């Protein structure tokens, strides 16, 4: 049996779990092609005009699936207790059903950690039953999924590039082959981790790139932002800050952020803002992102307190390469000038 899985949105955070889970069930999980012009245009045509670009891209990916026995579209409500994911994710798959190719069955499961791990497991059992698998199969599949996800997160924490990690997982398990990102290079090109090496030799500025993983790692839609930045600076991501470290930042908030991804972004942002070796923060967001509209303001405030240069890059389906490059260059120029001509005291005094 072949189930299609869109290479968008949840792919960037949870694909290893699902790949492992279905591998354990003996079902092939096949990814849609990497994002391209045709997929984006289909997404723009079929998705609701008001929705955000990641969802439009998701719709394009769903519509591009061919020759599958079905498409797997989980409803991911919560992956961490006392938090939610974005409302648009709670609205899957119903809000994107019109994108599913004619006649292709849709398989879904609701993952809601707010109800507890037991309930999540039961939900997975329900899905497996629908696919004609036994409860014993589910146990094995769940373990495989958990292991792959854990390995994935550990590798990301160590600063390994997203595509490289996915590829390695695939080779290890003889699972699906992802396409390597052109020019992403070896993990070490990303630069040394702030956590491991507090004092770093500076031949390039040190930038923290914050934002949802489905924007930061979506190289087509973000015009290869990560590669461009890495040519001029060491770039660190939110996945490279461990959960305990990120959590310690959250105590500074009077009210807890109730989105797990916002906690991750704000937590990592706080760690990077405070770190003396980090020269600047860039928050990559997209037009219309509801949770970012709140998180951005909180991160901006943290950056201000830490006197850290901070820039928000808001992209959408209309974003032009030139504008993006100009902004990055200006930001990096400012940082270089700050390092060479100014002392550590902010020019604001």
């Amino acid at each position, binding site marked *: 049996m072949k189930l299609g899985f869109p290479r968008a949105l949840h792919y960037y955070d949870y694909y290893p779990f699902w790949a492992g889970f279905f591998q354990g069930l003996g079902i092939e999980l096949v990814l849609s092609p990497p994002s391209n012009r045709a997929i984006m245009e289909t997404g723009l045509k079929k998705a609701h005009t008001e929705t955000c670009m990641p969802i439009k891209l998701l719709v394009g990916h769903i519509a591009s699936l061919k020759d599958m026995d079905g498409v797997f579209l989980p409803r991911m409500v919560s992956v961490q207790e006392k938090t939610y994911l*974005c409302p648009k994710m709670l609205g899957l798959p119903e809000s994107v059903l019109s994108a599913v190719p004619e006649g292709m069955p849709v398989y879904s499961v609701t993952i809601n950690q707010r109800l507890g791990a037991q309930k999540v497991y039961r939900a997975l059992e329900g899905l497996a039953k629908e696919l004609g698998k036994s409860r014993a199969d589910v146990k094995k599949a769940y373990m495989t999924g958990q292991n792959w996800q854990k390995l994935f997160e550990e590798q990301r924490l160590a600063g390994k590039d997203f595509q490289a990690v996915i590829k390695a997982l695939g080779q290890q398990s003889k699972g699906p082959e992802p396409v390597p990102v052109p020019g992403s290079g070896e993990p070490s090109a990303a630069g040394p981790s702030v956590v491991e090496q507090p004092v770093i030799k500076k031949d390039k500025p040190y930038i923290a790139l914050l934002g949802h993983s489905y924007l930061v790692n979506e190289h087509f839609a973000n015009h290869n932002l990560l590669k461009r930045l890495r040519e001029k600076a060491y770039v660190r991501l939110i996945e490279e800050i461990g959960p305990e470290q990120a959590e310690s930042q959250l105590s500074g908030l009077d009210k807890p952020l109730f989105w797990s991804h916002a906690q991750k972004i704000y937590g990592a942002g706080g760690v990077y803002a405070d770190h003396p070796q980090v020269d600047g923060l860039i928050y990559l967001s997209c037009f219309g992102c509801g949770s970012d509209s709140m998180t951005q303001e909180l991160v901006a405030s943290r950056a201000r307190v830490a006197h850290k240069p901070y820039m928000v890059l808001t992209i959408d389906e209309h974003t032009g390469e030139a504008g993006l490059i100009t902004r990055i260059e200006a930001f990096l120029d400012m940082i270089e000038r700050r390092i060479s001509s100014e002392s550590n005291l902010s020019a604001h005094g």
Partner: protein
Amino acid sequence: MKVTFPHMGNAWIVIQALFNALDIEVVVPPQNSKRALDLGTKLSPESACLPFKINLGNYLEAAEQGADTIIITGGIGPCRFGYYGELERRLLCEAGYPYELVILEPPDGSMLGLARRIKYLAGKKNSWGRIIRAIGFAYRKSVVLDQIEDRVHKARPLLQGLMDVEKLYDEARQRLAQAMTDRSMADVLRWFGEQADIGLLMEDQKERPLRVGITGEIYTILDPFTSLDAEKTLGQLGVEVDRSIYLSGWVGQHVFQGLAGGYKPMKMYPKLAKPYLNHVVGGHGAETVGAAVKFAREGMDGIIQIFPLTCMPEIVAASILPKVQADYNIPVMTLVVDEQTGRAGMETRLEAFVDLLERQRLQGGIREDVFSNAGK
């Protein structure tokens, strides 16, 4: 301590009643206006949704009248409204307005939680008994308010040209704001009924007015400034409107946890939405879909969904409404508002929609699939 709160349509009448009954000094912010919006927008994150920007303007204007405490409902997501209070407090503080914030949070958002927060505000002057009675009275006032709004919806299309409906509505609200007993509230209702005798007016009509259901994000559909007077415009175009959400229904559902129904209950919406959307998505996304199904089944001529730019739960609903449109053969129009939205644009769209409904009715009441761009 001078307490203020965000404006949302006529809710101020109910909130003011609650605080007056407890002798808590309350500052009702000036009505929503361009000034409030401009002040709020300047201080808000650019991508915050419209209600956030207007509310911030409310607090800035209330500060000019000496308010120092804000009371607002909270939330635990996933809709961002749950974080409004906290972010607003920070922005106001940074701008030099050190407001204290009292948030009604779930599970505190229950009646007990509400009573506790009120006790904090009410201090030693008020016993628990008095607090409970005040909450009950405010709730009953919200039911009367909704009844008045409902009658205004029915009266507008029938009274066009015969009477100044808006003037009557204004007076009814003033009278209700001043009513301090159940008896006087009943009097207001009776008086209003006499002034606009719907039953009598219906007899003179050759055919019933067109009926349109308004659904969408709660703040936008309850607040006329935010919806650019969509209800009034429709009424003036001869349309009787109904809404998916009324204040007492919302209070009954969210503050009293469903123990009270309010004038128009919201309880049935998730069940009606189920075939189209089988999970909560935060805000009133599922309710919007459920209400659309209810309106379609009631034989409404059309449905209008209104929400602020970027509202996440409503975007989910908007993606699903085309299916309701197709299944029930009922025209659905979605309108998105933000601080740039112009009145003329709103009126044009409403006029066009009403034209469509009138033509559809002329063609014999069979709903043709007139919206070819639905959901594509």
